[in-house]
């Protein structure tokens, strides 16, 4: 769960970013027509749309820190954005499970059959971990929806080389079978 806190002098609300776990300013203690209040920074919220900072913003808003902007419309807009984000991004974004499964399957099958046990699993893990890193970067840059689309593209591109190795092995086995069958036919005089 993402955290937020108010800095020592009480002027700034900070939230932990999704990827680097750095603290980023999301709101400030400002003077409004109704007195001093914490006003959450809409620009920051829009910039980090659908990233985990949203959760902190949402939590801060629930705790009442969004109160007292001058006009009600702005407050309503804030509320709406917060609600949408809260519905969609209550948990940390995760890459598409089916794409992960596909990559895991292909990488597991496409690994060389060496003496090392669990080689396929190690390759699949390394590939999936790298794809997850790229996904998290994309979440920060372009939002979760587009990051998921990019993940699918990367997963399909990454599956093909492993699939080709697996298919090559299958073809070789089929070729051997064919040669074996021919030899058997020759030896048995058929």
């Amino acid at each position, binding site marked *: 769960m993402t955290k937020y806190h108010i800095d020592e002098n009480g002027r700034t609300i900070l939230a932990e970013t999704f990827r680097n776990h750095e603290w980023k300013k999301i709101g400030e203690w400002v003077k409004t027509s109704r007195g001093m209040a914490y006003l959450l920074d809409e620009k920051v919220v829009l910039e980090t749309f659908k990233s985990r900072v949203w959760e902190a913003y949402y939590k801060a808003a629930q705790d009442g820190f969004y109160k007292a902007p001058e006009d009600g419309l702005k407050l309503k807009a804030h509320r709406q954005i917060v609600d949408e984000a809260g519905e969609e991004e209550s948990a940390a974004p995760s890459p598409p499970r089916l794409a992960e499964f596909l990559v895991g399957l292909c990488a597991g099958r*496409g690994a060389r059959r060496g003496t090392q046990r669990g080689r396929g699993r190690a390759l699949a893990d390394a590939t999936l*971990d790298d794809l*997850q890193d790229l996904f998290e970067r994309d979440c920060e840059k372009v939002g979760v929806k587009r990051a998921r689309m990019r993940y699918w593209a*990367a997963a399909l*591109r*990454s599956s093909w080389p492993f699939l080709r190795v697996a298919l090559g092995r299958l073809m070789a086995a089929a070729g051997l079978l064919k040669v074996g069958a021919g030899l058997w036919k020759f030896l048995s005089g058929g």
Partner: protein
Amino acid sequence: MNLTQLDQHLLMAVMALAPNAYGITVMEHIERRAGYKPSVGAVYAALDKLEEKGFVSSRKGEPSKRPGGRRKLFFTITAPGERALNESLRATKALARGLRLKEAFRPMGALA
């Protein structure tokens, strides 16, 4: 000892990035230096093949902090790998020698 162009690039990237050569860093290094971006899967499949030939070796990294704790694979070039790369680059250079390419790569100041 045939190396494909991707094999050459991977071996050079692994050499340059040691000891931090894994899928993404290798992929980005090739993108920066060679101008194309292989997929993560292509990098690992090719490195796996090179490891089978004994040209690189791999070690598992620490499990990541995410749920599930997957491990990265870090690659380093071996002595036979360096020899194979050297031979392959020498062959490429020998083949290119004497060719009149439209955009010849010359060291800076060579025309002066």
